[in-house]
């Protein structure tokens, strides 16, 4: 008996050890479970592989396009599209009846046919419906009918900026204009607009001002009607930054329309068309002559007789038949004088100069549809002489204007852009094309031509306009046509320190009684430009400076309107 307690003690000792072991195991297990619970709930979970991939796939949304003042030109909105799973529809007749009465433009017979096609699990009822229509159909409560949200690109300003902004296809891929740029060449710019952590994107800001754009379109369409032109275009550029503030090309198109089947003239003629701008090109020749120093403002040229080169004769439209000074050659738009100036500079130098201002190469901007200039293949004396006044020399209108901005901007050419650009950025990009003094001479000539030259109708009182006209005969079947013309005007204002450059072009304007039977630029493109400048100058913060003659002119026109 005496040994019993020992055994018992041993036993209980053994048992106690086991229990202790068990307890320890319990504690360990609890600790593990507790730790695991804390890890899973309190601490941040690691990012799962699937999660990470999903985030990468989530694509950057297409940025909105806004004008320089933030007016929305293109944006994505979410629209509902109604679909149906015909297998889930219980009463086909009732469903068709209800839907076709709720959506009047859905044909009941068509819908019935679509829904009763065997084996279909997904049928579109109507794509891109309004929120009201969506709610109306959804509230019908038909089983098997639902909607999905789709993105749709809309252009709230409609036709206004259609050529610059461009448009996208059904899958919101850019097809034309800035929309295409955002997808292709400008992809890096587009990516830079996106916010790194969230699926939103800052808008792409254009240089365009919709107010100015509207004035251009409005006045141009009036001019096209008035002069029965077949097409027309106008561009306004900031000379100092190279920004294209407005670009109109008529006829235009509606980017919101489903189908965009273009007519011949509906493309962007200011970029994708090349035109012989005619005498406007004389400005380039003058700038060249001043830059090479072969002429001064007081030089004289004999314009009494037509210039004969080989068997070709160059004569003047406004023939003066006398010796002309350089400013007179400009204001009378003398072909003879200009050709002689070009020949004095030299054929090689002429080509070198055109190369320097970029007229031999395609002008590249953000808007992708651009055309290469058409120039004579072989240069001789005759070609150099005719090219000096724009014959056989076709360029995109924007390129022509861009060169003139360089000539007038103290000789500093800033490449044109459709995107917003600051003065600082422009200063870096600027390229010297002519001497400062040559530019000053050109500014003087432009102003002179508007006060008493071919562009006198452009002299809007108060805004110191300067400019050069051009009337080119159009090439029809390889020959210059006598009655089909292209009238153009390139101008700038305010001329003492040029800030804005404008180009107006009318394709085949006709003579009207009001123009006394003339169909040259001075009678149609120039007054159109004047109307535009009078309306946009206050929008562009150009302060008017009125001389006494300007005041008299205003008074007279006011009386004429009243009478």
């Amino acid at each position, binding site marked *: 008996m005496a040994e019993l307690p020992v055994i018992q003690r041993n036993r209980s000792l053994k048992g106690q050890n086991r229990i202790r072991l068990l*307890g320890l195991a319990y504690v360990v297990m609890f600790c593990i479970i507790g730790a695991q619970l804390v890890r899973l709930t309190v601490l941040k979970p690691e990012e799962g592989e699937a999660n990470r991939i999903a985030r990468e796939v989530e694509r950057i949304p297409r940025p909105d396009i806004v004008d320089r003042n933030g*007016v929305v030109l293109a*944006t994505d909105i979410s629209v509902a599209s109604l679909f149906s799973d015909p297998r889930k529809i219980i009463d086909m007749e009732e469903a068709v009846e209800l839907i076709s009465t709720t959506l009047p433009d859905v044909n009941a017979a068509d819908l019935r046919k679509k829904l009763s096609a065997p084996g279909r699990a997904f049928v579109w009822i109507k794509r891109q419906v309004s929120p009201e229509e969506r709610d109306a159909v959804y509230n019908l409560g038909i089983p098997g009918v639902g909607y999905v949200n789709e993105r749709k690109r809309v252009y709230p300003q*409609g036709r*206004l900026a259609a050529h610059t902004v461009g448009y996208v296809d059904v899958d919101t891929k850019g097809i034309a204009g800035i929309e295409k740029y955002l997808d292709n060449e400008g992809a890096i710019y587009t990516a830079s607009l996106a916010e790194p952590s969230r699926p939103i994107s800052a808008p792409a800001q254009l240089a365009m001002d919709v107010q100015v*754009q*509207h004035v251009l379109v409005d006045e141009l369409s009036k001019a096209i009607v008035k002069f029965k032109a077949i097409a027309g275009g106008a561009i306004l550029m900031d000379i100092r930054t190279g920004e294209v503030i407005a670009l109109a090309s008529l006829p235009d198109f509606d980017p919101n329309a489903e189908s965009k089947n273009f007519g011949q003239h509906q493309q962007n003629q200011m970029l994708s068309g090349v035109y012989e701008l005619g005498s406007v090109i004389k400005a380039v020749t003058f700038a060249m002559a001043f830059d090479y120093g072969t002429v001064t403002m007081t030089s004289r040229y004999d314009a009494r007789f037509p210039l004969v080169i080989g068997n070709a004769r160059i004569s003047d439209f406004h023939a003066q038949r006398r010796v002309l000074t350089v400013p007179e050659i400009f204001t009378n738009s003398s072909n003879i004088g200009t050709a002689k100036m070009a020949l004095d500079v030299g054929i090689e130098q002429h080509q070198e100069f055109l190369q320097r201002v970029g007229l031999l190469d395609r002008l590249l901007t953000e808007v992708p549809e651009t055309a290469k200039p058409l120039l004579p293949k072989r240069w001789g004396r005759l070609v150099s002489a005719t090219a000096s006044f724009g014959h056989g020399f076709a360029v995109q209108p924007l390129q022509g204007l861009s060169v003139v901005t360089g000539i007038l901007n103290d000789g500093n050419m800033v490449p044109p852009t459709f995107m917003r650009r600051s003065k600082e950025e422009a200063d870096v990009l600027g390229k010297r094309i002519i001497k400062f003094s040559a530019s000053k001479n050109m500014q003087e000539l432009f102003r002179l031509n508007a006060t008493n030259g071919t562009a006198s109708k452009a002299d809007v009182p108060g805004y110191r306009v300067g400019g050069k006209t051009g009337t080119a005969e159009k090439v029809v079947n390889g020959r210059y046509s006598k009655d089909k013309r292209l009238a153009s005007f390139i101008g700038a204002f305010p001329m003492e320190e040029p800030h804005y450059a404008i180009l107006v072009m009318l394709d085949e304007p006709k003579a009207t009684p009001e123009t006394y039977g003339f169909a040259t630029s001075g009678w149609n493109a120039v007054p159109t430009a004047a109307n535009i400048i009078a309306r946009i100058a206050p929008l562009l913060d150009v302060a008017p400076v009125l001389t006494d003659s300007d005041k008299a002119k*205003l008074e007279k026109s006011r009386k004429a309107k009243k009478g």
Partner: protein
Amino acid sequence: MLKLANFTLVIATLGTASTLYNLEHTTRAHERSIAKATAALVDNAEAIKLLNAEWSSLTRPERIQQLAKQHLGMKQIEPDQIITTAELPQRLEAMSIISKPNGKPATIDDILKKMQ
């Protein structure tokens, strides 16, 4: 001793369980409100985009011009209507109707008389 250990462990288990339950419950509530707020945010962002587009469409210069012509009878501004502040005529001394010529403050009666 053992009982005490057992007891504390049971209590601890119950305690952690209920805390975790509460924690999960509130977490779920928070998650729900986050989801709701995110959805509302998306909806509102969408609505803002739509309204911006509508605003842009309604303020089309072409439309405004037409409305202004129709309802306001406004005309195009002429250059001589724009002047600088320096060109403004010197402002005249305010002709006060509040005080009489002799400097005493006017009564309402005086003002009414003057207005007639």
